[in-house]
């Protein structure tokens, strides 16, 4: 397939809880095209977050392969994956996961600085301005509201202009007004950066705006 940015081949993942083995994902194969907005939809416990973690290289599958830009990343070590994560992938989490000891601006700059980008500060400041938080650049995460934290997290995910952004329930911890704002910002920024977006959500409303929906039921793709 042309312009394929991400491909998963027969992914399976299970966990052991005490003596029980729970299969979370069972033989998942899928692909994501460049620029696509793909929603992974499913109920709580369906395996959305696990699939997102596998696709982004945070987890290793029990079996199967993941190809990012046609490169198999399944067997890469943490340190081999690190530059990939930094330059190719952006993350937005439900719980924001901002570094508590850094200010809003520094949190956004962080991935760019890891990438030795000399324009890290300027890019971060510009992104903050675009999400209307430029006056809060010196605030630490604990000084920000949930919506503000997620806006900072959005900026951080996009500061290195990644090829693909993974968003795991990005509005899950926000009220509806803040959730709507975040979603609009995410869409707007995604268009501006021209990146691929893979989002896990159980919101039908968000799914309705996606280019494609992948529905998960009990760890399998519901076709």
């Amino acid at each position, binding site marked *: 397939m042309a312009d394929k940015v991400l491909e998963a081949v027969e992914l399976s993942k299970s966990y052991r809880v005490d003596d029980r083995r729970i299969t979370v994902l069972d033989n998942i194969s899928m692909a994501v095209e460049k620029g696509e907005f793909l929603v992974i939809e499913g109920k709580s416990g369906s395996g959305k977050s696990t699939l997102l973690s596998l696709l982004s290289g*945070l987890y290793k599958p029990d079996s199967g392969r993941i190809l990012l830009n046609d490169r198999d990343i399944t067997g890469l070590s943490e340190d081999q994956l*690190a530059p990939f994560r930094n330059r190719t992938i952006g993350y937005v989490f439900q719980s924001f996961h901002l*570094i508590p*000891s850094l200010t809003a601006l520094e949190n956004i700059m962080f991935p760019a*600085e890891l990438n030795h980008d000399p324009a890290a500060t300027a890019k971060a400041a510009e992104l903050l301005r675009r999400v209307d938080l430029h006056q809060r650049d010196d605030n630490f995460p604990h000084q920000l509201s949930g919506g503000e934290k997620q806006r900072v997290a959005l900026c951080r995910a996009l500061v290195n202009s990644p090829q693909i952004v993974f968003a795991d329930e990005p509005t899950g911890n926000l009220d509806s007004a803040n959730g709507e704002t975040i979603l609009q910002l995410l869409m707007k920024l995604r268009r501006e950066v021209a990146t691929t977006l893979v989002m896990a959500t159980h919101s039908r409303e968000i799914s309705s705006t996606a280019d494609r929906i992948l529905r998960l039921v009990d760890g399998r793709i519901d076709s």
Partner: protein
Amino acid sequence: MLNFRFIFRQIRSSHKQALIFVFCVALSLLTLVSLGGFSSSVRSSMLKDARQLHAADIIIHSHYPLSPVLTTAIKDYEKQGLATSAVVHEFYSMTSNTALEKSVLSHLKVIEKGYPFYGKVELASGRDFSEVLKEGTIVVEQSALDRLGAEPGDSLQIGSAELIIADTVIAEPDRPVSFFSFGPRIFVAAADLERLDLIRMGSRIHYNYLLKVNDPAMVDRLADELASVAVAPQERVNTFENAESGVKRFFENFLFFLNLIGIFTLLLAGIGIQTALGALLRDSEYTIGIMKAVGATNRFICSHFILMIMLLGTFGTLLGLSLSFLLQLYLPALFGGILPASVDLVIAWDTVFEGLLLGTAVVGLFSFMPLRRVRNLKPAAIFRKERGTAGGRLAQYFTIGVITCFFTGLTIWQLEDIATGIYFVLGLVGLLGLNTLITQALLRIIRKKRPRTLALRQAFRGLFRPKNATRAIIITLSASLSVIFSIYLIEQNLQATFIQSYPPDLPNAYFLDIQPTQRQKFSTILGTEAQFYPIIRARLASINGRAIDREIERQRRRDNLSREFNLTYRDFLLDDEQLIVGDSLFGNRIEELRQRGEVPVSVLDTVAEIGDIRVGNLLVFSVQSIPLKARVTSMRTRTESQVRPYFYFVFQEETLKAAPQTIFSAAKMERAKLAEVQNRLAKELPNISVIDIAKTIEILARIMHKLSTIVQFFTSFSIIAGLLIIISSIFATRLARIREAVYYKILGASSGFVLQVFTLENFLIAMVCGLLAGLIAQAGSWIVCSRVFDISYHPLPGRMAIMVGITVLLVIGVGIGASLSILQQKPAGFLRDEE
């Protein structure tokens, strides 16, 4: 009702912090209890072996032959069959192997039959000492044989006598150490004393009259009777139970100093207890919040945590006591060479009891603040938005006040010296206060810094991570390091001044006990220019009519006024002297003084400080029991502290010329020439003792190094307190550190970067500690060297850098060791738990 299962579960869930708490409690007791137990063991061994330590029941010590009245009294006892006596003469003299032309300064012990009344002189051959040492023979220490190239059967020249080596001595009961001796021991039979021809007027001889009392119950009575007729203060009568020895006194003083270090360690371990307990209770904040939210009272919660602390405190105390005893097993080896007796280790139950009390007090004191936080914690803690506070400032000041009072009381009780105790606590408060102030200031500066390098910036931020005990770590580590650095710097400076850079122009040989009639011949043998100092031995009887209290004086830890002084006479200042009060040595009112029956005297400032002597004061000396009234006419000081002769009291020649005296001389000569002079003096003027300064300096260096090693050994325990706080801090911030590490990795940082950040954070802590400690140590050592020792100070920057480097490696090693599991954390698992 108490729920014990809850308590055990709390301990299990925070077992790492609990373990550190236990270690800190154990550490707080370790030094003090082990030293207390050890000194009890030493004292009990000394008491048990007291008769052997002095080889007799009654010991009469004098620098002169016994007064006739005392001699008569002893003879009467012997006639009545009450006691048996033996005289022991101890003095230094040159001993030569004439065949090889080798000479050595040796420590002679001339003994009468009967010595030792108690204990045993052990010989290499295993034979009975009384059977071996006969007239015409000697028993020598192995080092004498080595240095003289002799062996048993050879003969050695001592004074005018040629004596045959009969055996080698391994141990003697009343001199268990050879650490402080300037020459090897040689036993000579009293029958040969006259043949030696070494005892002249003014010679430095220790006369020890030993008495064995046939009825042990009469020892005290006879001693009292003898003391009543003895000529005070030159004749000292003691029983084996109350006899003092210089070595014993030195050992007590040294233990006194080590106890100060023990208290210092106790305080730092106390800070560790507070930090570890704070972390342990913070781990439980969520649980406490829930308990409060569902209606548990403060009384209920606190009683559980108090019981938990008591349990852990008990474990810590027991561990501390066990480790103290184990440490005591090692102490005889560590103290090897300076112990006044062979030590049989005993469990000193009073020390164990004191240890238990101390453990309880320390845990109670340092648990107060963390427990107040538990009490003040609101149920909102379950939302993790609120933390308990230690209460108002009043409560904090109150706690600090109680801790200060406790330490002051403990110090005074341990040292049995109020003034020193208060000075020590003030010094300690000053050190920690200064440390705290500088640490606060440095952290404030660091907080504002924003380094360009990403890893460094993250490390800077890491220092201020919530729950990070950065301040406590820096204060404790830098305080303990500053003490260790100071001891090292002072030792090195003393070595540099007195030993390594011994000025080439200063005399390198001292000659003692030259008789005035031998001066001419001595000069001929010497064949080089030498300085001569007449010496008249005397005691200070009173200052301004106030008699010298010998008991109080003997309790002084440095020099004291009860000892015998060497007076001299001359009318000029020595090269290293200058007047600080007065226009000339003896002023211009000499005639006026003479009319009042007084003579002028110039006093050195160091002895003036001891006795608070001022110009114009009247000093009365006792020169062989003849009073000498001297008015202080000037005060001198020494311009440099070097190993060269100096005199506290200088008189006019006419005052002391007629007094019994010897001459002391000092000269500078090549080593080969010195050996030749030693041999000639041993042959022609055998009563003159030669001290080779190079050899003396070697002994001084060995003693200094030994003492410094022991002090550093005990101070190193206080470093452990700092390291335990580092580990506790890492455990307390484990979640935050894992979160940071995971976020870094998610955002594309390699594990190398994470390691770099954590390493840099520890590096920063270590550098701040090292530099702060270095700064304080430099200032403290400079003050001690320039004010106390009066020597020039060398900051030794290279060695300081090495010590700071070792600190950095130690802190990084411990920090990274405790962070290994954090570094290995996989991001996804953590994130799943966090969501």
